[in-house]
Structure formats: C-alpha cells, structure tokens
C-alpha cells in the first residue's frame, strides 16, 4: 500500500541546493538547542528531585553574565540565519536577463501557460533544463500561488498586477505543480505537472505542438480589433504615444517623474490609463478594464514588447522612436 514515501524532496533546480543549505543549517541548530534544553530539564529533574517533604530549592536570583551569554549568542546565530535567508531570497527574486519567458495565468481552478512561440498548456508546464525560465504571472479572479516543491520556488498570483517567478531546472523529470494559496472549492485540484526536459527534447516538444499565434501576433490582432491603432500610430496627430521602442525604456511622465516601461507599466496603462500620463499627451484614453482578459493583456504586452526588439513584428508605428516617450 505505502510503497512510495519519500522524506526529503527532490532537488531539481539550481535554487534547490541553496534553499536546502539554509534548511540543514537550521535543522542542526534546532536539534542542538531542543536536545540541550530537553537534556538539561531531564537531568535537573532527576538530580534535584525532592527528597523529603519540606525541602526547598536554593535561593539563586540570577546571573547577569549568563543572561548576556544567552542573549548575545542566540542573537548572533539568528543574524547568520537572517543574512543567509536574505541572500538566497534576493538571488531567487531577481530574474537574470535573457531568461526564457512564459506567461502564466491562474484562474479557479487551473493554470494556463503560454510560451512565446504560441504554444499553450493547461495544468502543465514544459521547460528546458540548464536555462533560466521566467514566469510572468497574473490572476483572473482570486489569489493563487504557483508552487513547484522540487524547484523550491513559489510566488503568489495576485489579481490586478503581475508577479514574477524564475528558476533554472537542472534535472530532467516530472515534478508536482501546486496552488499554494487557498482559492476556493477545488483548491487542491489546482495542481499539475512541470516537465523539465533536455534542451533538444524541449525544442522537439515545442515543434510538435499545434502552436496558435504567438502571443505577440495575437496581441497585434487585438491592437487592431480593440482600436488601439487609431491613436497609437504615426500620423494620428499623436493622440497617443508611439509604442515603438517603448518597452524597457525610461518614460517621462506629465508630472515630471520617470518610470521604466515594464510589463506592470504597460498593464496599468491599458487598464488604468489615467494613472501615468506620458509628458506631452492628453489624458484621453479610455480604460480597457473588463474589455480584455488577463491572457489578452499579456498578449498586448507581448506585442508592445516585440516592437522594441530588433526582429520584432514591426507593424504599425514602426517609425523611428520620437525622442522621449
């Protein structure tokens, strides 16, 4: 019946070893202090047991030296834990440049992923080993949390904004994917598998699928059908800023502040266009909140992004960047 019961999770990503390093250190500290306290308590209880009815203990009130000792030493140990924890967190938090990007949308109760070449997956995620993979994640309804125990990575998926999670898989195999933030009835069914593959196999897998439009191409269609193109194009009396080379650049706003045009900025500019107005433009754009789904938002972002990459699909607005916008 119980043939499969591991006591330690597989290490299948570059991050896993780092996390396990802190873990083992802290297990050792915990074991040491727990056993120390238990041993002392048992020892004292036996050695100083009450031998006759009226016996009382010694009048010892305390010792400043001991108090300092057991304040300072634990403090220093915890500071090691703190620094180590922050270091690992920070490294796991910053995605490296050039990571392979995948869009992920969580909704009750499934995970939808879309690769940059258009291949879509549900409750599965295929990734190559040895290459950083960056997930840009949004939610269509409530909070979820994308969790791959074997990679030791997790990030909450939050409606209304994006969260990023990245990892480098190291060991080919099939690993659990869980939703870790309670999300309603079928929370425990919002699970799936992550397949880590050799790069060549991964390419073969990508090629074997029936890819729909790439996100950028789908985004371009939306750009037309939603009417974005009416204002965001050359010759439209510059009602809206041209979007060529916007992504990744620093944008100057009407208020004089600057902002880096990343996914979060583009998303906000679509759903809440009045929040940050580019210098030199009128706040006339209507909101697209509710008119486009989370997946379509990501496709629009992919399109805007493609306008900034040299081999991008170009299309409308493919004019030289107008200085600052």
């Amino acid at each position, binding site marked *: 019946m119980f043939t499969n019961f591991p006591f330690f999770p597989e290490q299948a990503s570059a991050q896993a070893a780092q996390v396990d390093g802190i873990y083992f250190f802290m297990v050792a500290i915990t074991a040491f202090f727990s056993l120390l306290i238990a041993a002392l308590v048992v020892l004292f209880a036996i050695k100083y047991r009450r031998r006759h009815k009226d016996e009382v203990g010694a009048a010892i009130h305390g010792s400043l030296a001991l108090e300092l000792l057991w304040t300072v030493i634990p403090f220093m140990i915890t500071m090691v834990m703190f620094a180590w924890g922050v270091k690992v967190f920070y490294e796991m*938090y*910053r*995605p490296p*440049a050039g990571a392979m990007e995948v869009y992920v949308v969580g909704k009750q109760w499934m995970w939808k992923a879309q690769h940059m070449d258009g291949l879509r997956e549900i409750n599965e995620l295929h990734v190559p080993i040895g290459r950083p993979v960056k997930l*840009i994640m949004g939610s269509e309804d409530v909070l979820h949390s994308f969790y791959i125990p074997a990679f030791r990575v997790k990030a909450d998926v939050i409606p209304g*904004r994006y*969260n*990023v999670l990245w990892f480098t898989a190291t060991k080919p195999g099939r690993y659990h994917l869980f939703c870790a933030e309670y999300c309603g009835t079928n929370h425990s069914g919002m699970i799936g598998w992550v397949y880590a593959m050799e790069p060549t196999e991964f390419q073969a897998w990508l090629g074997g699928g029936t890819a729909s439009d790439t996100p950028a191409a789908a985004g371009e269609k939306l750009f037309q059908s939603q009417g974005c193109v009416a204002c965001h194009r050359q010759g439209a009396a510059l009602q809206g800023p041209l979007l060529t080379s916007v992504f990744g650049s620093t944008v100057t706003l009407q208020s004089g502040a600057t902002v880096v045009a*990343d996914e*979060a900025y583009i998303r906000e500019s679509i759903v809440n266009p009045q929040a940050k107005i580019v210098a030199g433009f009128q706040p006339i754009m209507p909101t697209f909140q509710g008119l486009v789904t989370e997946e379509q938002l990501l496709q629009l972002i992919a399109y805007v992004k493609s306008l900034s990459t040299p081999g991008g699909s170009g299309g409308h607005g493919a004019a030289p960047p107008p200085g600052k916008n």
Partner: protein
Amino acid sequence: MSAGHVAPKSMYYMVFGALIVGTILTVAAAKVDMGPLNNIVMLAIACTKATLVILFFMHVRWSSRLTWVVAMSGFFWLLILFGIGMTDYMSRGWVPGTLR
C-alpha cells in the same frame, strides 16, 4: 491628576477660539496651491488642533504621567502601522525586472 483641577472658563474660550482660527486657516490654506506643502500644512494644523483638544478639553495637561503615556501610545502605535506598513508600498518596484 485630572480629578480636582478646575480650569477657568476663559481658558476654554481661548482654546475654542484657537480651534476656530485653525479651521479657518486650514480652509484658506487649501485654496492656495502649494504642491506637496498643502498636505504638510493641512496635517500640521489638524495635529495642532487635536493637541489642543487633548491637552485642555480632555485635561491631559493636568493628568498623571500614566495618562500621558497612554494617550501617546495610541498615536505611536498608529505611526508603527503607517510607518512599517508603508515601507512595503514605498519600496515596491525598486528591483528592476521583478514587477513588485
């Protein structure tokens, strides 16, 4: 100790006058565009008015040190909530590429 101290009526009227002046000032100041200074002026006047009410109308001026400590602790904890809570909101997006 608050029990026992009877403040003269004239003091109550003076504090009252100051509160009314503060109200007029704050409405007037709001009509002038001073940029971010508006908020500071507005809150400074509100804090002054609140302090007057606490010290004189609520008799803290003549109360035990314990009452001072209790009254201050409420505002101090409020600052903890605001201050530490806002560290999150103020530092979001500081690390590029993470979107948070």
